[in-house]
């Protein structure tokens, strides 16, 4: 008998006869879809607040100012090179100086390790938890590019990419894509529970809340 059959057989014997209970009605889903009533503007404010509370640096701008802001943020970090996902709207980095590095299959992780910063878009941002979700779309790139550099700038289009809560975010996401949920920069509390930012992921997370229509800076 295969181990699969053994385990499944043990489960059957452990449970005995089980009544037919459709899953749809087995769980009371009377918990909240979101916590508190907020206007769209308040939801965006809450996102900014919660991101900052977990030590992300938050900026707000509109489509006209975005290229200059990104240029400044990269310059302030002294970034010589910046990783760019395949379909980042080209206008976004129009004013930036650093060398663009494009992530290709042939790129070794050691090569990516030499990039100073990475700039990406975002799939969904969750206000109540201060979370950004990346889903590997062409404006966000593969998972590794937001992991290896020490500085990540994530541009969130507000309000259309912002939801209030975790339940709302899951509805919008496609489970078939690789998903990375980011809440503040990498952190550890393993040493006497003192929080230290950045062990392996980017130590600095900057979030740009971009107002204007989705095609604003394309």
């Amino acid at each position, binding site marked *: 008998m295969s*181990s699969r059959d053994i*385990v*499944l*057989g*043990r*489960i059957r*014997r*452990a*449970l005995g006869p*089980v009544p037919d*209970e459709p*899953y749809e009605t*087995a*769980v*009371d*889903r*009377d*918990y*909240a879809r979101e*916590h508190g009533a907020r206007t769209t503007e308040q939801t965006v404010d809450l996102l900014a607040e*919660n991101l900052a509370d*977990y030590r992300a640096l938050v900026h707000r701008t509109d489509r006209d100012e975005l290229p200059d802001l990104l240029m400044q943020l990269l310059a302030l970090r002294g970034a010589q090179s910046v990783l760019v996902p395949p379909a980042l709207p080209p206008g976004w980095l129009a004013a930036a100086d650093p060398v663009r590095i494009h992530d290709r299959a042939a790129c070794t*992780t*050691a090569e990516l*390790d030499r990039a100073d910063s990475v700039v990406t878009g975002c799939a969904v941002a969750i206000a*109540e*938890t*201060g*979370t950004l979700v990346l889903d*590997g779309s062409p404006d966000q790139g*593969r*998972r*590794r590019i937001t*992991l290896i550099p020490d500085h990540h700038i994530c541009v969130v289009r507000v309000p259309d990419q912002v939801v209030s809560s*975790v*339940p709302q975010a*899951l509805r919008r996401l496609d*489970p*078939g*894509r*690789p*998903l*990375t*949920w*980011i*809440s*503040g920069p*990498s952190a*550890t*509390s*393993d*040493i*006497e*529970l*003192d929080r*230290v930012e950045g*062990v*392996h*992921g*980017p130590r600095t997370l900057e979030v740009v809340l971009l107002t204007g229509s989705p095609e604003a800076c394309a």
Partner: protein
Amino acid sequence: MSGTYLGMPAFPAAARDAVRDATLRANLRHATHTIRDKRAKAVAELDDWARLREAGRQIKDHTLRHLGDHLLRLEETVTAAGGTVHWATDADEANRIVTGLVRATGEREVVKVKSMATQEIGLNEALEAAGIRAYETDLAELIVQLGQDRPSHILVPAIHRNRGEIRDIFAREMERWGRPAPDGLTDSPAELAEAARLHLREKFLRAKVGVSGANFMVAETGTMVVVESEGNGRMCLTLPETLISVVGIEKVVPTWRDLEVFLQTLPRSSTAERMNPYTSMWTGTTDGDGPAAFHLVLLDNGRTDTLADEVGRQALRCIRCSACLNVCPVYERAGGHAYGSVYPGPIGAILSPQLRGTASEIDASLPYASSLCGACYEVCPVAIDIPEVLVHLRERVVQGGEFTRHGAKTTLRPARGHAAERAAMRAAGLVFARPGLLRAGQRLAARTRRIHPRTLPGPGRAWSATRDLPTVPEESFRDWWRRTRGRGAEATGAAGARTEDGEAGA
């Protein structure tokens, strides 16, 4: 489980030594109180906490009652998404499968995400015996591994080490494992974290095989979920060419939507954060992003035996948040090592004897490693009634009875030398069968707290001789809840006395 830690004394003896260690006690006390207080605040932010907790309980209970169906569905969806599913009845088989998979890649080293399942089966040792080196990459696990130590807490495994000790371990040991610690390393947490970053980065960038566990597996979609803070998880899950995840069969949840419950309750219960810094979700393999090969090893290793016990089964609801450790007066004094298993604290006291059986002295003593104060139940985000299971297991140890071991029904003979506990247990059983009595008892205890003895009489004396008894709170939790939450609380507790579960004041 692969067995107890070698030469591990029974809980009372191990606890006695731990309680004498003043540094350990101070470290633990600081840590558990800090997390506990922060957690209460994080939980208070969600006014539907009691309903989320109940939904979590229901999801897990339904999953367990239909476990076979959900696992088959999971196998189907993971396979359809490009993954390969393996089944392991016990630790040895799981280790054989993983070792074989690593060998097939031709690699001699793997990077690991912190995972209790792989600790439970002793995977690192099995890999080492096969000539494969496993690098732990979680900072705390690294501290534990370099210090040739054992983890003492689910969430913060090196909680028993202070910064000076960590500095010494890094300065002394890093060189033997790879990049040495920087010269003149101090004990500042930022510097220590930086040393770990540099030490591990060279391993991440060259690793071809990653090994992980998972917090959740979604049957409906085949999605795996790993929740972490440091980014070492993301490194191990996305940079290697081959990813092997070893996951207990109880970690499956039926639907994608179920994550909305656990992604709200887990981070707040464990690290007291609204959300942990990183959560990774992947479904099989994705072209051009992440590992080209994904293997899922579904682990039984005593879980089906636990499932066969209708009272004890609820331990399989556990989402390993560690909230119960941080509120446990016994854990706070004894520390995680005294439990002699990878699962310490209240959850360890009920899970380990079920996964391993109660044949060994330590496993037979674990159901007694509790004061039955009930704090663990109050904080548990999936409402596991740990005191109820403890009493049930004591009964099994003392009176013997039917239970399942390796899938076969077995009868346990009553343990010798437990006559005194038997009497104590009967009293406890009586009280727990009647919630009214429990309430009255708690209130009485609170009123008479000034005359409480410093040591326990009778069989409890040996236990209490080496530690301070936890002080009895002025007011029992139930009374506090009634007073502060009043009628609203009663209304949400409609499902019975056991659902009056606000954690905010626990």
